[in-house]
């Protein structure tokens, strides 16, 4: 089942991956090849099989909700490309009215 260019654009948008010239063809071809291999899973009847998300015995763990030390603001911001007044700075999220 080859992937169409429309599907590639849709998935790239979902993944927030920009597309450059040639990317659509590249992904369409490469992903179609991999998906062709993956199609074999459909040969297996798994109607009665439960899914496995994790394989070991550990169950959900709860802990006391008590204050404890964490990263300070300077450490948290140290790797940011842009910070202002103790905040991460990003391009505008809303268009100006």
């Amino acid at each position, binding site marked *: 089942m080859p*992937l169409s260019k429309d*599907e*590639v654009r*849709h*998935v*790239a948008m*979902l*993944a*927030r*991956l*920009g*597309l*450059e010239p040639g990317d659509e063809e*590249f*992904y369409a071809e*490469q*992903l179609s*090849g*991999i*998906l062709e*291999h*993956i*199609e*074999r*899973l*459909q040969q*297996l009847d*798994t109607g009665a*099989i*439960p*899914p*496995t*998300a*994790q*394989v*070991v*015995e*550990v169950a*959900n*763990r709860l*802990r006391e909700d008590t204050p404890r030390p964490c*990263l300070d603001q300077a*450490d*948290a911001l*140290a*790797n*940011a*490309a*842009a910070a202002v007044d103790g905040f*991460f700075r*990003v*391009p*505008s*999220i809303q*268009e100006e009215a």
Partner: protein
Amino acid sequence: MTKLIGSTAVELSKLLRARDVSAREVLAAHLERIDEVDGRVNAFLRLTPELAAAQADAADRALKAGDAGPLTGIPVAVKDVLCVRGVETTAGSQILRGFKPPYTATAVARLFEAGVVMVGVTNCDEFAMGSSTENSGYFPTHNPWDLDRVPGGSSGGSAAAVAAGAAVIALGTDTGGSIRQPAALCGVAGMKPTYGRVSRYGLIAFASSLDQIGPFARCVDDAAMTLSLMAGYDPLDATSSERPRQDVLNNYGGDIKGMRLGLPREYYDVEGIEPGVKSAVDRALQLLRDSGAEIVDVTLPHTDYGLAAYYIIAPAECSSNLARFDGVRFGMSDQDAPNIIEAYSRTRRQGFGSEVRRRIMLGTYALSSGYYDAYYLKAQKVRTLIKADFDQAFTKCDAIVSPTSPTVAFPIGSRTQDPLSMYLCDVFTLGGNLAGLPGISVPCGMSDGLPVGLQVLAPQWGENLALRVARAYETAGGGMAAMPSLLRGEG
């Protein structure tokens, strides 16, 4: 001068405790070795000489005070996916160039507490995605046995560093074979623990239900000791197990008389396995028989579906994990974009390499509306079948033995155009990740001058069994890492 390069940690530790040599001298010898060979091997992305010097001095103080552990003063290399506070850590990716973590991964911190000396950060496939280290966002690493060939991957830099004698121990991570396969291709020991044995806190995540941290070493004892020091519950990783870390070493030095070792026909009698690999493994099986083990046939009937299930589950988890790389809190950032969506999209297009983008796209597609049931849910059900295959096999045997990889190290550039041929490197290893099993690869001879690896898989929490088989094989005459002839006579 005592021979320091190519020694095991066990050997070096004896010299250090006897005060025949200082940790500073051991470090100096390894930095010199790196200087001599790493221009050709390119195992390291960065060296950490200042950190190493401080740790070596601390090790020497501990040794002088008689307060030393088995790894005190031992030079260790760390894969570029494990955070070390203040040391640039990039997951082999341009998108994290310059990132200095504000904390240290638990596995690394525990080894630091045990007195190791970190010499540098090793190269890997970007975000640990690959089987050759050619997907590094920086440069490829070369196999110390043949510099025109790959070291395997994704932990290729760590495997090559140990093989070249540039570090005594190295840390790697294994999501589908990324410790065991490069260990095999470089002729060293490499172990992936049971899922949950080692805390993943501070590991830059690829596929969270599959990732585990483990050691590379020149002998089984070194791997066992390193693993036992990293293992155990960590409140910072809710999937880490409360089982005592000492379990790893429980009678692992015992013999294998009467043990039943299962040989899965799907990992042995298959197309694509090189004759030289098969004959090396046959010799290893004979040595195991001579040591008292019984080799029994077992079957893993869903093996043919493993790769397909893996290439849904791993990319799906990666597409979610790698969403955090958006240019806001760390890493590369396109600051000229007109709006935030454009900033994310440009940063990620620019910062990620082609294999990482391919997997993010595949995983996003598999999780997207309308396809979830057909792909992700289906793959999780097949994962249940694959785990059941192993459960069934382990009713007939104590551990499973097989080749680690169907081939020896392949030429650089020979598989990069065809992702599926690269993915097929992991057919014998990724089942162990899907089922959460511990596995070790140890050197088992050569094929045309290149190392072959023997894989031992054990039931969950049976690291001691896998180690026992590997160690018995080593004691019987196989298993120990040799020094590549290309690099011999130096250092």
